[in-house]
Structures are given as C-alpha cells and as structure tokens.
C-alpha cells in the first residue's frame, strides 16, 4: 500500500493506476482519491504554502509549493550560480567577499523567516552559512540575496539563523570553538585554555532589514548546535543546545559522547543588550565583511569591520544559565505558548521537556548545581516537566501543530513521533523514507502554527525513485497532519541537502512579489534608460560597452576597436518592462559564464579577450519568436592596432 501511495501523487499516474487496476466503482474511486486529491493542484491553480528549503552543501535556498511539492525556484545565496551568473557578474561578486577573500561556496542550513508578533511576516528570509561563518538575508519581494554578514570568532555558524519574535535580533552560534584572537595559532591540545565559544547577536533594522553585529557573548568552549528564540512569555530569551561539554578536540564521536547530560544554554538577550548599552564588556579587534546590496544602484557595498563588542557572562549576572539535558542534544524547540522547551537528545532514550516557568522559579530560588565560567547550572529536576518515553532512536527536532501536539523527527529509527504536550505520551508514529533529519510544519515554530501539513526532510531516498546512480537527490515527504493519524501524501526530490525549511501561507508573500525593476528607478551608475543611450567608450585599456537589450536585438550588436590587453566591461540593461521577460548575454570564450537579466535590471559582465578574432555573442534566454536573431559580433584586433572604436545596430 505504501508503494501505491508513492505513485498517486500525480494525477496522470493516478489514471495509470486506475487503468492497471481496472475501472473503479464509485466506492474505490473514493478510496484512491485521498492522497492524490490532497496534493493535486490543478494546472493554473496556486499552492497554499511556500516552503523555503535550505540547500545544505549546495549553499542555496530552494522554493517549493505545498502541497504539490513543485519546485519554483532556486535562490542563489552562498554559492556561485552559473545559471543566473550570480557570483560571476561584477555586482554580485562582492556579496561573496569575506575576510578570507572571495568564497564561491558555503553550506546553508537553517532558513528562518522574519517574524512580527511571533508569526512569520513574509518580509525576509535569513539563512546561515556554516563553513565560513556568515548569515545571509533574502528579500522576499525580489527573492534575491541582498545582504551577507560574516561572523568573527566563529568556527562553523551552525546554531543559526533564528530570529526573535519581532525580528529584533537574528542569532549566530559557533559550532566549533576557536581562539578569539584574530589568526592566533596555539597547540590544539590547549583547547580548554585557549578556545572559546561565541554567540553572536545581530540587530535587524525593522524597516530595511539591514543587519548589524551588535555584540558577542563569550561562552565556554562547547559546541553550540542549534538555537531558538522564545516567544510570548519567554520572548526575552534565546535557547541554545550544546554538546561536547567534555571539551574534546579529537574523535568527538566518542569523546564528546561521554557525559550523560549536556546543556541547554538559556540567554536573556534583552538583559544582555541592556548591559551592552550600559557599556559592560569591551571592544576587541576583529576582521569580518559586511556586504549589502543597494536596491537604488544595484551595487553591493562590501565593508570590512575591524572590531566587535564582546560581553562575558561573568560580568553580566542574570544573562545566562545552563539547563542540563540528556545527551548530546541537537534541536531545542519552543512550543507555541513559549512555555515548553523541547530538546532532542541525539543519544537520549527520552525526549526531555523543560518548563520555562520552572526555569524562572529555579533561578529565583537559586536551585543551582555549580557553575561554569560564572554561568550558573540549574538542577535538572528543577526545570524538567516531562520526559517523552519510547520516542524511537535518535530524536532530533520538534515542530508543533497548534492543537496541543508536538512532532519530533527521529533519525536512527527514521520516523516521526507525534506526542501530546499535556501528557507527554506518544500518540502516533509514522515512518520516514529514509533517515529523517529536520521536519517542518508551516508556521510550526511560531505562535500559531498552520497544523495541516508536515514535511520530513530525509537524507536518502534509496529505492523510492528511479535510481540515478550512486548519489541520489535528497527526498522530502509530505504528510497530512490534520487528523488524529499522520498520513503520508507525497514524496518529492529536493535540491542539495535541505537541513531545515520554513513554510508560510502563500498569501503572505505572493501579492508582494515584484514583477519588474522599473526603469524609472534604476539608479545603476552604468544603466542606460533608452536604446539611444547605448555607446562604447574607451578609457585607456578599459572599454565600457553601454548595452541595451530588447526583443529581439542588442544595442549595439556590432562592436569594433577592442584590442588585446583591453578589459571590456559590458554594462548591460534589460530595457523590457514586462514580467518575466528575461534576456541573457554570453560571448564566445568568456571564462565567467553568462549573465541573466530581469526586466529593468543592469548588470556588468567583465571580459578580457586573450585572442584576436571575431567573437559572436547572443541572448541566452529564449525571449521571443526572433530570439535566435538576437545576436551580435565583437571584433578583437591585435595589441597596439589602430582599429577605431565603432559600434551600432542596423543603420544606427
């Protein structure tokens, strides 16, 4: 029967199933309807939810429709994208600048939508870069990456990029602890003495979304794995999971799995920010990039920051506490009321649930069990409110349906367990194919989840699809969670390795989606606003081609006077003003690919010809019936030749 469910996601195949199984009576027509009907979005109709999935080792974000599982777009974020030219054309390169230079790739893990009053508001999507620690912001009007901030003192920004309930802050958290001093090298065996952790608090401008690194909290050298901001009553707090409280620096598989309990770190970010405003802490040297796209000019401003404000918990009483929790926890998730903190212990035999109110009481009564670097450790029994028994092997992450239930992904036994937030008893469980990591319910991390669908983000499909060699794309699975029992509806492949995902009602984003970049507001310094402004200008060895594109020609399309040794900048403007009419530009032998332009956009393509000759260029995006006619030639003459600059299209 599960096999059958696999296939019935598509209406065409449903017909095939019916054909093969004989024509239905009205009775079994109803039987076969369920899963297909629940995921079928008729041609021309729209999905109910957007799902934004991280790309993991692709470094990008992909956008799917739910319940259809249709892929709408891959948004380039941390990795170069030859398809669009992102990271290749001049303006976009600066987004990928870091203190280590230009970096063409990263590992994107946890997308998080901006929130207002604890609900996703559809304005921006934040996502962390894990390897060279960064946070990116995607604008959800243009579906474009508009800002990337590098995080200093961080080695693997994994516990990121979760926002507070009104997007006051977005968080960074180091997975690897490292020495704080810039480029300091020490014996690795001096880990306990020289290594430190960093939790990074990034302020978000409520109007523009622009990020500013406000301060870092210096914490013991554990691995900070995941984070969540509180909500409602716990909205002033961030919670982080730690593992490797053993402070091992080698063979962590064994050495960081010795302690029966690690910690949830609870941080009162409001209080911490107050201390910083009062001047507590100090400014230390740092070196990190902050790259911001300016929508007025389409240019990216890449700024190097030279210091960062740090605060130590011992100087900031009341800011940070440790809550012991079993054992190498992965996710820490906060229920819709803000009261329950659910830790997924990768190696734990239960799912521990902590109470925020009990935590406050324990802090007030000083129910502590020692301290670490001035951070009080609260007694386990003091915050514990329940332990979910028999959760399967390897519980990881929890989302909520807003109807009193939690759903926890369980990796080793590859299942989702549904349990009651009142009784802490498992009420249902269902298999995930195979090896589930995160799971996502649209709004399932907010104050009011849309408890209709749940998506499992799995690590391997094995035999679920037609095989495509030794490496298969990661699968997602869609479940109906509207009833008492979870029901599998659909399998679909994804891009890269989605770690976490976010889901949001389509009507919170779709009406704001931009259709064009208006030419009137194109402030790019090299834009042309009319084909009559197209021209070629020589400035020493630099030649600037101010080029326009319109169906179906380039202005200019015949260019002469380029010489070997020249650097040619094609400043290209797509003069179309109609939704989704793209033009692309590619020229023979160019080592940086092509560039795609949306209507009204200006981008710069750099070309350094290495051979003389005639170089054809053409539009790479099928734009019109005469697309194949949209082409041109550049003549490249020898170094020192006196071929004059000439250019034109037709007789103009």
């Amino acid at each position, binding site marked *: 029967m599960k096999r059958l469910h696999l296939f019935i996601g598509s*209406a*065409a195949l*449903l*017909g*095939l199933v*019916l*054909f093969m199984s004989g*024509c*239905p009576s009205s009775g079994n*027509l109803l039987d076969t309807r369920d899963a*297909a*009907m629940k995921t*079928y*979005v*008729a*041609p*021309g*109709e*729209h*999905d*109910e939810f957007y799902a934004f999935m991280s790309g993991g080792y692709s470094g990008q974000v992909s956008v799917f429709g739910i*319940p*259809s599982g249709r892929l709408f777009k891959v948004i380039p974020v941390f990795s170069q994208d030859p398809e669009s030219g992102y990271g290749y054309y001049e303006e976009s390169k600066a987004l990928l600048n870091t203190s280590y230079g230009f970096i063409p790739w990263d590992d994107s893990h946890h997308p998080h939508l901006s929130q207002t009053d604890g609900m996703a508001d559809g304005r921006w999507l934040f996502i962390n870069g894990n390897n060279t620690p960064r946070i990116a912001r995607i604008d959800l009007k243009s579906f474009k990456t508009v800002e990337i901030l590098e995080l200093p003192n961080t080695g693997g920004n994994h516990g990121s990029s979760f926002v507070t309930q009104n997007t006051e802050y977005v968080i960074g958290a180091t997975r690897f602890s490292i020495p704080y001093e810039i480029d300091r090298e020490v014996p690795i065996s001096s880990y306990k003495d020289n290594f430190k952790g960093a939790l990074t608090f990034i302020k978000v401008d409520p109007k523009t979304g622009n990020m500013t690194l406000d301060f870092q909290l210096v914490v013991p050298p554990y691995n900070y794995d995941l984070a969540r901001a509180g909500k409602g009553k716990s909205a002033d707090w961030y919670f982080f999971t730690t593992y490797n409280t053993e402070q091992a620096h080698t063979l962590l598989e064994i050495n960081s799995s010795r302690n029966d309990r690690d910690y949830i770190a609870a941080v009162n970010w409001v209080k911490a920010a107050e201390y910083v405003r009062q001047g507590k802490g100090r400014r230390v040297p740092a070196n990190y990039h902050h790259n911001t796209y300016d929508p007025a000019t389409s240019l990216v401003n890449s700024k190097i920051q030279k210091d960062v404000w740090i605060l130590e918990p011992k100087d900031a009483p009341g800011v940070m506490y440790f809550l012991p929790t079993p054992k190498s926890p992965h996710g820490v998730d906060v229920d819709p009321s803000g009261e329950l903190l659910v830790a997924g212990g990768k190696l734990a035999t239960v799912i521990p649930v902590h109470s925020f109110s009990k935590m406050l009481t324990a802090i007030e009564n000083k129910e502590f069990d020692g301290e670490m670097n001035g951070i009080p450790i609260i007694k386990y029994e003091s915050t514990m409110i329940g332990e979910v028994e028999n959760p399967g092997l390897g519980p990881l992450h929890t989302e909520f349906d807003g109807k009193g239930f939690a759903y926890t992904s369980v990796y080793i036994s590859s299942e989702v367990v549904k349990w009651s937030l009142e009784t802490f008893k498992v009420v249902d469980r269902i298999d995930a194919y195979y090896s589930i990591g995160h799971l996502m319910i649209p709004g399932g991390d907010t104050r009011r989840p849309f408890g209709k669908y749940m998506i499992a983000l799995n690590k391997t499909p094995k035999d679920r699809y037609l095989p495509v060699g030794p490496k298969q794309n990661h699968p997602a699975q869609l479940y109906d969670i509207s009833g008492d029992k979870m029901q599998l509806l659909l399998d679909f492949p994804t891009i890269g390795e989605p770690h976490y995902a976010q889901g949001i009602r389509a009507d919170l984003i779709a009406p704001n989606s931009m259709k*064009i970049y*208006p*030419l*009137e507001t194109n402030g790019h310094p090299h834009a042309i*606003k*009319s*084909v*009559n402004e197209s021209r070629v200008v020589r400035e020493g060895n630099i030649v600037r081609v101010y080029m*326009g594109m*319109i*169906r*179906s*020609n380039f*202005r200019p399309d015949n260019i002469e006077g380029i010489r070997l040794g020249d650097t040619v900048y094609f400043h290209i403007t797509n*003069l*179309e*003003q*109609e939704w989704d*009419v793209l033009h692309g530009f590619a020229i023979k032998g160019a080592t940086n690919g092509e560039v795609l332009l949306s209507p009204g956009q200006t981008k710069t393509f750099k070309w350094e010809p290495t051979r003389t000759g005639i170089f054809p260029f053409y539009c790479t995006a099928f734009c*019109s*019936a*005469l697309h194949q006619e949209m082409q041109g030639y550049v003549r490249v003459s020898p170094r020192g030749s006196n071929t004059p600059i000439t250019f034109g299209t037709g007789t103009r």
Partner: protein
Amino acid sequence: MKRPTLPLLILLIAACGGQPETQQTTSQKPAIDLTPFQLEHGIGPVTSNPELPPISPELVAKGAAIFEMKCVSCHVMDERFVGPDLRDVTERRSAAFIQNMILNPSDMIRKHPEGKKLLADFMTPMPYQNVTEEDARALLEYLRSVAPKP
C-alpha cells in the same frame, strides 16, 4: 488549492473510455465577443473616445520622454522596425485604440482582430511597458505632435 474535481474526474472518466460532456480546462477560456466600441477603439481601460483638445506642449514633452525610454527600442519614425511606423498612427487609429494598445497589449494582440493582424505581421508581441493611464495619454499627445500636418 481548489478541489480538483472536474479535471481529475474528466481524466478518470477518459481513462475508462467514458465520453465527458465538456472538455473545458482552466487554460482554455471561451472567446469573448467584442462590442462595437471595442472593435473600433480597442480592449482596455479606455472606454470612451471623446474629441481631443488642442495639442498641449507640456504633455507632448512628457510623452516624448516616455517614448524615448520605453518605445524607441521598437518604434522608429518613418521606418518599419521591430514594430510599425507610428508617424501617422493617429490618423489610422482612434485615440482610444492607441491608448488601449499601449495599456493592454497582451489582450489586444490575443483578442482583437487588428491586434492579431499586427502580431502576425510583426511576429514580436508588443509588451506592456509599465506605464500608467496618464503616461499613455502623454504618449498619445506625443504621437499627435509628430503626425504629418494636414
């Protein structure tokens, strides 16, 4: 998401050899009958064709600037280019027709007999260039100003 009752049922019935009564899908809308006004003055937001006042130089200047940014790629005076020569367009078409063609080209080239003819002749569909009704009125004024003097 709407419940996919009809198309899916049609698919199922078709798979079983039944004869569906209707074949209508969401993408095939029935042809619209054009009104006499639309036949003469085009389909779009401009629904009357009053007598025009004398040419306003301010409006001509505004229209010329918009024409330079958004139209000149395809329309060149006294020449058949990507699109038709517009020198005498105000003599060939009504004011309302011209504005509707500017404001609603996608319907004009798909539903209006004159628009369909233009598409078949020039092959490149005229795009909507993100202009307002005021912009279209200014463009009309510019086109009036360049027309041959009687």
